[in-house]
């Protein structure tokens, strides 16, 4: 089933274009950091040049990626749900394997591919950063050391910057997986693109625009300690999983007669 979904995604040229555009966005963010080096800018240690560290020249790559993340994930990994409903494939597959199996496989697939997509993107970004800026040791974050307690997350991250990047990359990827899960659940329940896309985007913007924004929990090397950022992350993930479960349960109940 996984191979079938992968072939379905990769055979669509517009999806390949979407993959490539997002990858180029993160690559551009990395490469743009070398523009001022000929003018005297000190290149920073590779761990501080990653996409999540937000030390790039421009705010736009990060903004374009994170603000519209649900749209990319829905388009890449949940759009087949709308196609299935429009062509009636959902009924054919449900008759063969049961609606429950069909729905759960769609949801698991969306979570899994969203997670893999974002983790691959961020790990590639980390790898290219270590290649492009290998040998650099400077970081403007080291100047902040005297102003934070040694147990503060910033101090701990500065002691282990590579590990800090890995942890935050995993957190971002898991959140993306949960976002994919939510999009797939809404798609199964509502079945209309022009309703699911805006609803998913609005639900995503609630934690993004909050005073304690979810974006703070995706940024290594910030001034906010763990006790400030993990509640936001936990609440957002829990609420999204709960909403996904509600949508999925509702749709399963509605289709109980064709469930296994």
């Amino acid at each position: 089933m996984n191979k079938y979904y992968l072939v379905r995604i990769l055979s669509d040229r517009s999806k390949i274009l979407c993959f490539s555009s997002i990858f180029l966005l993160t690559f551009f963010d990395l490469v743009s950091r070398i523009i001022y080096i000929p003018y005297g800018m000190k290149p920073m240690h590779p761990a501080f040049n990653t996409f999540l560290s937000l030390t790039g020249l421009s705010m736009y790559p990060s903004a374009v990626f994170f603000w519209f993340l649900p749209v990319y994930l829905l388009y890449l990994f949940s759009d087949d749900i709308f196609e299935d409903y429009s062509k009636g494939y959902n009924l054919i597959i449900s008759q063969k394997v049961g609606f429950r199996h069909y729905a759960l496989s769609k949801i698991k697939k969306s979570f899994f591919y969203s997670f893999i997509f974002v983790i691959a993107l961020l790990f590639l970004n980390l790898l290219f950063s270590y290649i492009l800026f290998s040998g650099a040791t400077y970081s403007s974050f080291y100047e902040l050391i005297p102003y934070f307690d040694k147990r503060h997350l910033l101090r701990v991250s500065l002691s282990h910057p590579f590990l800090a990047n890995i942890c935050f990359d995993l957190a971002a990827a898991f959140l993306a997986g949960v976002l994919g899960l939510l999009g797939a659940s809404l798609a199964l329940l509502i079945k209309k693109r022009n309703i699911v896309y805006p609803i998913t985007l609005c639900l995503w913007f609630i934690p993004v625009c909050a005073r304690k924004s979810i974006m703070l929990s995706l940024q290594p090397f910030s001034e906010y300690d763990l006790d400030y950022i993990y509640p936001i992350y936990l609440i957002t993930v829990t609420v999204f999983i709960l909403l996904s479960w509600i949508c999925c349960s509702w749709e399963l109940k509605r289709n109980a007669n064709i469930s296994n």
Partner: protein
Amino acid sequence: MKTKRLLIAIIIVSAFSSVLFSINAFAGEDNFPYSFTMKANQSSNYSSDSYERTTIYTNNPWKVNMTFNGEGTGTIATYWIASKIIHTQYSDKHNVAQGSGAHYYFAYSEASGEYVRLGVQNNNNTTNSYTVSGYWDEEIGRQISNEG
């Protein structure tokens, strides 16, 4: 004798005055106040005032002292100096914690003889804007060996 003493006094006063005037001919360390908005989503903003970096030395640093950040006590903002009109970056970007005192940073050689503004952006990608204020100087009038 009296005339001789008067002459010596005049020479000494003249010597001191010339040294004093020559010191005042170069820019000293100033504290220009600034207060403006640190925009949302890591957008850059710049001080309304600009000053000319007359020095040719990149290690005659610019200074920033962030005394207030609406984001909260001890929070961080990113500062640099930039050209007056098109905001070309004229120094590295540096993270400054609120209330951490004055910091001195090197400029790029392109900043020599140019009018510069203080640039700021939030180090966090949030949708909130905050007011930041403090003091800055485009050059402090002496060379230093280490930034910080």
